[in-house]
């Protein structure tokens, strides 16, 4: 078990390094560079100033030298410093990651509490009005981008009822209720967009499982339909759903970036957005490294959960 996890984590290393290379290069290829921005902001424009800043930031080196210097630092746990704030990137990540993690976690809870019961209900009541309603809802959630929903939630209540969602961030440890009051709206929006596919998958898998022979065996024992579903169908149906949730992890993170911007949540998404506008290369690379690592870890967790859900996997 431990060996398995270690092996998997080591296997992640090349993937992460390759991904970081792509981010590193592509950031430097997009038009507009950090020196221009800095010069403009400080009303400087001479070539002398430019060279001085480049040298100070280490951007005068050839790109591959910059990359190897950076990756060398990464392996020692040093992600460099922000070009603008001059604070260590690790510090900025440490401050923002827990916030984004909280948003993602809340969204996942929302997604599962919406998707699983409705998906199961939809399967049990196949082709009834309730089923159609649930499927239409999931189609709508799939089609509507969460930034649009987010904007609606911001604008309409304030126009109609002079109410708008809280936009002031309070750290969870300072005042949990205040914190949740702020986080819950983006978490619900993110969770709903995540629930759409999960709900459809749950419905499809439950329909598939309910046709299986062992379900007939369970019924022949005299179990009530509730027990048949809860004890015999659900776990079998959930195995593929867990994979889907893992596959949606990047979607979750992408959605968080947008919703953090709309709801002023000072998480990693907001950090990334600002860094991109300012061409703050080390911060961007740092965020992507963490995101990439996060996605891979989620997939590892998904694989591990198979062992728990599916005894066949456990015994291999």
């Amino acid at each position: 078990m431990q060996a398995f996890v270690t092996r998997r984590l080591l296997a992640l290393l090349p993937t992460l390094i390759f991904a970081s290379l792509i981010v590193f290069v592509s950031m430097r290829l997009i038009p507009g560079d950090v020196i221009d921005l800095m010069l403009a902001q400080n009303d400087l424009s001479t070539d002398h100033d430019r060279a001085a800043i480049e040298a100070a930031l280490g951007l005068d080196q050839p790109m591959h030298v910059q990359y190897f210097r950076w990756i060398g630092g990464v392996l020692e746990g040093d992600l460099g410093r922000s070009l603008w704030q001059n604070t260590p990137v690790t510090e900025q990540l440490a401050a923002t990651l827990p916030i984004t993690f909280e948003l993602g976690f809340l969204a996942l809870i929302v997604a599962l509490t919406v998707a699983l019961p409705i998906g199961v209900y939809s399967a049990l009541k196949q082709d009834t009005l309730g089923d159609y309603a649930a499927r239409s809802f999931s189609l709508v959630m799939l089609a509507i981008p969460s930034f649009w929903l987010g904007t609606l939630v911001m604008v309409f209540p304030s126009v109609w009822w002079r109410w708008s969602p809280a936009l002031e961030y309070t750290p969870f440890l300072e005042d949990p209720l205040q914190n949740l009051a702020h986080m819950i709206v983006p978490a619900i929006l993110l969770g709903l967009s995540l629930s759409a596919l999960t709900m459809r998958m749950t419905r499809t898998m439950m329909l598939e499982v309910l046709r299986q022979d062992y379900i007939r065996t369970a019924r022949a024992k005299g179990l009530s339909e509730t027990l048949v579903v809860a004890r015999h169908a659900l776990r079998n149906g959930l195995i593929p759903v867990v994979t889907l949730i893992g596959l949606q992890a990047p979607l979750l993170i992408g959605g968080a970036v947008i919703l953090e911007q709309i709801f002023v949540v000072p998480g990693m998404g907001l950090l990334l957005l600002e860094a991109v506008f300012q061409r703050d290369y080390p911060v961007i690379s740092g965020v992507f490294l963490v995101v990439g690592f996060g996605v891979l870890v989620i997939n590892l967790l998904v694989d591990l959960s198979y062992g728990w859900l599916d005894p066949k996997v456990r015994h291999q």
Partner: protein
Amino acid sequence: MTALLEVADLTVTFRTDGGLVRAVDSVSLSVEAGETLALVGESGSGKSVTALSILGLIAPGRIEQGRIGFAGEDLTALDEAALRAIRGDRIAMIFQEPMSSLNPVLTIGKQVAEPIWLHRRMAWREAYAQAAELLRKVAIPDAEARLDDYPHQFSGGMRQRVMIAMALACRPQLIIADEPTTALDVTVQAQILALLKGLTQEANAALLLITHDLGVVARYADRVAVMYGGRIVESGPAAALYRAPMHPYTEGLMRSVPRLDGFASERLPAIPGQPPDLAKLPPGCAFAPRCPHVHDACVAAAPPLHALDASRSVACHRHG
């Protein structure tokens, strides 16, 4: 004395794209307490549908008419809750596919103990102890240790033993075994059938044994009912029916039974022709298109099941 199970004039239909399918058509059969009745017929003749309708598990099919008397009650008149109380407790069922009939994510112990937990309202721990006892009874080696194993750790034959243990769990009065050995190796088939027969006798339970193999019938059944196209075409004591089959279909089935004395384990040629399409049954005898003795009366009208004496009936114009 009335029989333990008394199915009378049972008709079950399915709505399909090809029209209304009469999977079971006016079927009557009875099983006495402690007796073994074999229900024989080709694939698609309605054996499983008959069995499942006894348990009330034929959705999306519908019981159009008929009575299913069990120990003095009419099962077709019971509501779902009352049927659930009977399923797995007084009537248990064993299915054809041991590979897919057990839940892959639950332990064997849990699945065998479940009916005891459910119907006897026993704590899981005690139910597990009984499950171990049941597994020993069906001759699973090292039963206690195997309670925590999962179905994929068992062979097909062992899984069918588990199914038998599960069926016996609540000491049912009636066990329905739907082709319990069709999916197994020939060598394992005999062992499983002998085990099933022995244990049902020991528990003094009645057995409704569904099969398409008349060879099985000769050895294990007291009486036989032969089904064709959703109807019973012949019924009678196993020995008499085996010695002198009356319906041409039964004769055909007998010819396709492999000889018990020879080495020939391969099946002999079956009856030529195809089983009927139940959505488009002809007005006459369903077997007429394949019957070597067919004549005009057979095509004009279906022969009713006709009692020859107290124990034998046949639905054929030759014996009308």
